[in-house]
């Protein structure tokens, strides 16, 4: 057998990519099965009061539901791979186009949310870890635990009530595209961004704290301290720098979680992203949209996790060598 892949890094990367592809195949099966698990006839349900025998046959043929199951799966998987996710039951628009229209709103909310989360979590988490056991550590821990326990939709509503309805500083809801109207975009994204960022920040604070604590317990930190390096140098060069790797991981996971989980926040702020699209599609029983959105979101989730793993391999020599 010829050895195609020689370097351990490449082997690790190849394994991770292969693994992600297998999981993605599983996701594809589940998403495909979704529409077949619906009790009753999805085409009939989707048509509702607009049902006529002609419309029924047309939609059934258009969505391929009249063919054998395995044929449907291969056809669905093949089309999905080429970017064709079918047409909406509701209005006949191509699902891919609809998803791509909604993506920028969700991505901008996710990015603003993760930036706010990092602005909170990095200083709070590092401070808390470096002051372990003191009062300020206890305050950070209790506050972050509190943040983790708050429903995001409730926080969103309270933020709207305070900053929009009472103080009239910011709009209650809506979205402006970044490139059309940057100022309007900023005004509209602050409250939903804060809602997402405060919750994610609370979670990340807890992770960053424990990441820094883990590193601080390492032998090389003790060595650095015992050879007389100033505490500030030990903290910055040995502790915080090495804690960057787990922080990178949790940031990636959180970004993936935010992108996939902003459904409720998007509903509260009438934010025209993927989450609100899924929500409306569930209410309207628009299965092609639900399938497409679930597929896209799961793919994004896997992709971000894969990128994090790859960065990890580049940054951490232990993974390269193991």
């Amino acid at each position, binding site marked *: 057998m010829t050895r195609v892949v020689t370097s351990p890094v490449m082997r690790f990367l190849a394994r991770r990519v292969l693994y992600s592809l*297998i*999981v*993605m195949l*599983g*996701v594809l*099966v*589940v998403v495909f099965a*979704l529409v077949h*698990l*619906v*009790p009753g006839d999805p085409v009939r349900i989707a048509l509702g009061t607009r049902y006529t025998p002609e419309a029924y046959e047309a939609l059934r043929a258009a969505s391929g539901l009249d063919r054998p199951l395995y044929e449907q799966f291969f056809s669905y998987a093949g089309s999905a791979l080429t970017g064709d996710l079918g047409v909406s039951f509701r209005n006949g628009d191509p699902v891919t186009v609809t998803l791509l229209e909604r993506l920028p709103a969700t991505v901008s909310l996710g990015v603003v949310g993760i930036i706010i989360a990092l602005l909170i979590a990095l200083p709070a988490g590092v401070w808390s870890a470096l002051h372990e056991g003191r009062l300020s550590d206890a305050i950070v821990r209790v506050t972050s*635990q*509190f943040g*983790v*326990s*708050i*429903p*995001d*939709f*409730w926080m969103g*509503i*309270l933020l*709207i*009530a305070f900053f929009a*309805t*009472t103080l009239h500083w910011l709009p209650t809801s809506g979205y402006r595209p970044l490139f059309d109207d940057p100022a309007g975009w900023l005004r509209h994204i602050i409250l939903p961004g804060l809602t997402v960022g405060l*919750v994610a920040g609370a*979670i990340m604070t*807890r*992770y960053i704290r*424990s990441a820094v604590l883990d590193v601080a317990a390492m032998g090389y930190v003790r060595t650095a301290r015992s050879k007389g390096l100033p505490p500030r140098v030990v903290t910055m060069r040995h502790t915080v720098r090495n804690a960057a790797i787990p922080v990178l991981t*949790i940031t990636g*996971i959180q970004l993936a*979680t935010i992108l*996939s*989980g*902003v*459904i*409720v*926040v998007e*509903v*509260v702020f009438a934010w025209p992203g993927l*989450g609100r699209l*899924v*929500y409306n*599609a*569930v*209410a309207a*029983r628009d*299965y092609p949209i*639900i399938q497409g959105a*679930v597929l896209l*979101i*799961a793919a994004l*989730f*896997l992709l971000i996790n894969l990128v994090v793993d790859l960065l990890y391999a580049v940054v951490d020599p232990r993974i390269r060598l193991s």
Partner: protein
Amino acid sequence: MTTQEQSSRVSSLRLLAGNPVTVGSAIVLAVVLVVAVTAQWIVPFGTNDVDVPNALRPPSGEHWFGTDELGRDVFSRVLVAVQASMRVAVVSVAFAVVVGVTIGVIAGYRGGWLDTVVMRMVDVMFAFPVLLLALAVVAILGPGVTTTILAIGIVYTPIFARVARASTLSVRVEPFVQASRTMGTGHLFTLGRHILPNIAGPLIVQTSLSLAFAILSEAALSFLGLGIQPPQPSLGRMIFDSQGFVTLAWWMAVFPGAAIVVTVLAFNLLGDGLRDVLDPKQRTMIEARRRSG
């Protein structure tokens, strides 16, 4: 029970009792549980007693949490909603524990191809964000309490499968398990007598944290109108309904939300306290994947 087991249990309890935060959250949860169980008998008003002339009244001696836009007593509705919320959380997490632990223990104990196949399936489940998976289940089965329970149960099953498998793998190679197998005991006996008791710690911790997130998930689904259906009151739906009245009647939004926060916070703090004692090394996976929504 051996003396050693007894003494380790006693010291665990002593450790737990020595942590005021853990004790405090346990007390809060006990109160919430009593309220949830007895809600029907202790509510001062019917949850759907409409009293329009007294609509949107602020908290008072008669209506502790004020009244909503139809004059219904918010306090009574919160109590009954807490009951519904706890029921959904407990039943769905129980489902996840039973199914997930069974899958995880069998996969970890049996090993080999079965383990590989089962855990890859669990990985696929993990690729779906929590609320999205729940929404997909609702899209299939239609909204309602049973769907909500099933959706949350399915969402949390893979977490328990992973925790149970990881713990089983480490216990399986312990000498006392090997010895038991060598003595010719059956697999079921070994699982029940040696494996399960020794993996209980991480599972208990996970259960407490999962209950917290199950309450949040139920509230989110009900907020979206896909969970508990009216006329039965639910905390999520009460918050949704309060949106039009937030500046007019803050109490409509604040009390149901506070009920969620208090319960979830108590489960989280209890879970943290339990982890310190029962499972100090474990960092739960659930947080990484928590609350998509």
